[in-house]
């Protein structure tokens, strides 16, 4: 319906002519061509033409157990982060969607302030918290709960906790917007028909909020698969993920063809997930 009126309006105003449209879009096309398409294509091409056509670098990913382990760990970490973000984020989105006025503002601020803070700052904060002489270890020592500092930083657990913290807002916001779009009458109707709050939530609210859950889960999963900064700083060199492995191959080992193959794999998985779940990911609503 809205489309129909837009179409008639457009025909009244008259679309821009084709040459004018092309001229307006040209700077964007040039920019994306030069700084996106060409670099990514060159990186990927380098993984199969080195200099002759070869699958060697791609095969290496699956042939050497260490790389398979890193890939597996990356997927596993991303899955754990996604599940944790869902478990922590859903209740926040639920309470936020039922608040009005000041309460809603307060929760929104708690969710948005971290989102607007640089990932580096937040990763640094986790280092401060988890270090040998960090806040958590000092507190535990002071309270006499431990006599030796625990090894918290540079572990897989540290990466998971820090990444969950960094990515949690990406889970909360889509769930919140899908909860907000559920008419409150539905919950009331279920309650009138004799459902308790938990039953009403389970039978009405939760199923209707699933599109938001899917969107948030895919977003968090994709972002954690390719995350570089937090694993690099909090995970250290022992806990490589595919992103930090790509970084290591290019900066330390200068193995560009292999880095290209790894980047190609990460890109393919990411784009594949986006293609499959395109319908739940409405980028138009982001930001």
């Amino acid at each position, binding site marked *: 319906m809205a489309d129909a009126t837009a179409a008639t309006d457009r025909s009244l105003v008259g679309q821009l002519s084709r040459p004018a449209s092309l001229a307006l879009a040209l700077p964007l096309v040039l920019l994306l061509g030069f700084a996106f398409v060409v670099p990514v294509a060159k990186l990927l091409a380098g993984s199969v033409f080195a200099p002759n056509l070869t699958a060697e670098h791609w095969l290496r990913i699956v042939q050497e157990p260490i790389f398979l382990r890193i890939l597996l760990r990356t997927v596993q970490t991303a899955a754990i982060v996604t599940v944790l973000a869902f478990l922590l984020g859903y209740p926040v989105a639920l309470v936020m969607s039922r608040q009005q006025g000041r309460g809603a503002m307060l929760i929104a601020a708690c969710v948005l302030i971290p989102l607007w803070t640089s990932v580096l700052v937040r990763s640094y904060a986790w280092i*401060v918290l988890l270090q040998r002489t960090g806040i958590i270890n000092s507190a535990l020592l002071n309270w006499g709960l431990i006599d030796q500092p625990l090894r918290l930083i540079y572990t897989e657990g540290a990466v998971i906790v820090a990444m969950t913290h960094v990515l949690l807002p990406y889970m909360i916001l889509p769930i919140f917007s899908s909860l907000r779009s559920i008419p409150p009458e539905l919950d009331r109707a279920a309650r009138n028909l004799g459902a308790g709050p938990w039953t009403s939530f389970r039978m009405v609210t939760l199923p209707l909020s699933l599109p938001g859950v899917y969107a948030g889960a895919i977003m968090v999963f994709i972002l954690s698969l390719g995350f*570089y900064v937090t694993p690099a700083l909090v995970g250290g060199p022992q806990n490589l993920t595919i992103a930090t492995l790509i970084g290591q191959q290019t900066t330390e080992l200068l193995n560009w063809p292999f880095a290209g193959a790894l980047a190609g794999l990460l890109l393919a998985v990411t784009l594949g997930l*986006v293609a499959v779940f395109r319908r739940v990911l409405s980028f138009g609503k982001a930001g």
Partner: protein
Amino acid sequence: MMSTISETGTAGALRSVPAPSRGHLSPDLGRWLLNGFVGLVLAFLLLPTLIVVPMSLGEASYIQFPPKGLTLKWYHAYFSDPDWMGATWFSLKTAFATAIGATVIGTLASFALVRGNLPGARALQALTLAPLIVPHIVLAVALYLVFAPIGLTGNFAGFAIANTMLSVPFVVLTISAALQRFDPALELAALSCGASRTQAFWHVVLPNIAPGVAAGAVFAFLASFDEATVAFFISGVEGKTITRKLFEDIDYNLTPVIAAASTVMVVVSLALMAGVEWLRSRSADRPVNSPK
């Protein structure tokens, strides 16, 4: 990972009759537990973000908690260190150029996408969003691969190009949305009163979508200012951003100067985002924009 959350389809759940509630927690206790849990999660979200502020004010030169003494010496160290200042100005300059570049390019392209007659508009739209989806590590090494041989690493031009590419999706998204909300009848009125297309754009369309344009520009600025992964790879000894400098210092010498620099970054980001929220509330207040 999906198995935990995809239990019932929407339709199936709605069709089934609610079972009589049995054996659940009392509503008050349930609500109390829920609110308590949410309070803890919000603390988990907020505290590590803001912890850099007290860390930047403590006396000790190593990480100490709770910080003892109150000093501004780390801020003094930050503001008097040419390396930190160089990186900060470099980031601000790049972000400023990115905001201008991405806003101009993004506004023009949004017009072509929303109002234009563009072959392959869908493909261009998908391509425009791609930098949001493609992992930054892939873009980072790809840009380094192409930029290094032609001297575009470690300098202003290379950063301006890379960050404009990374930020332009935010601009196209916000401005396309503003253009779609804008009633074309207003533009038609201007055109039928004798305005040229350019005049109609400057005097009618632009003032109406201005909050969207401004929001897009601020997003672009922030996306550039906060960007860490690509910046890590295309920085040089001379031209490096504050994020690259932070990265290096966190890795090699953890001093409270990092906390001071982090606090400065947080303040810049929050001030800008508060500005966006203000713009957004302003544009929401203006009913003339909405054709509904």
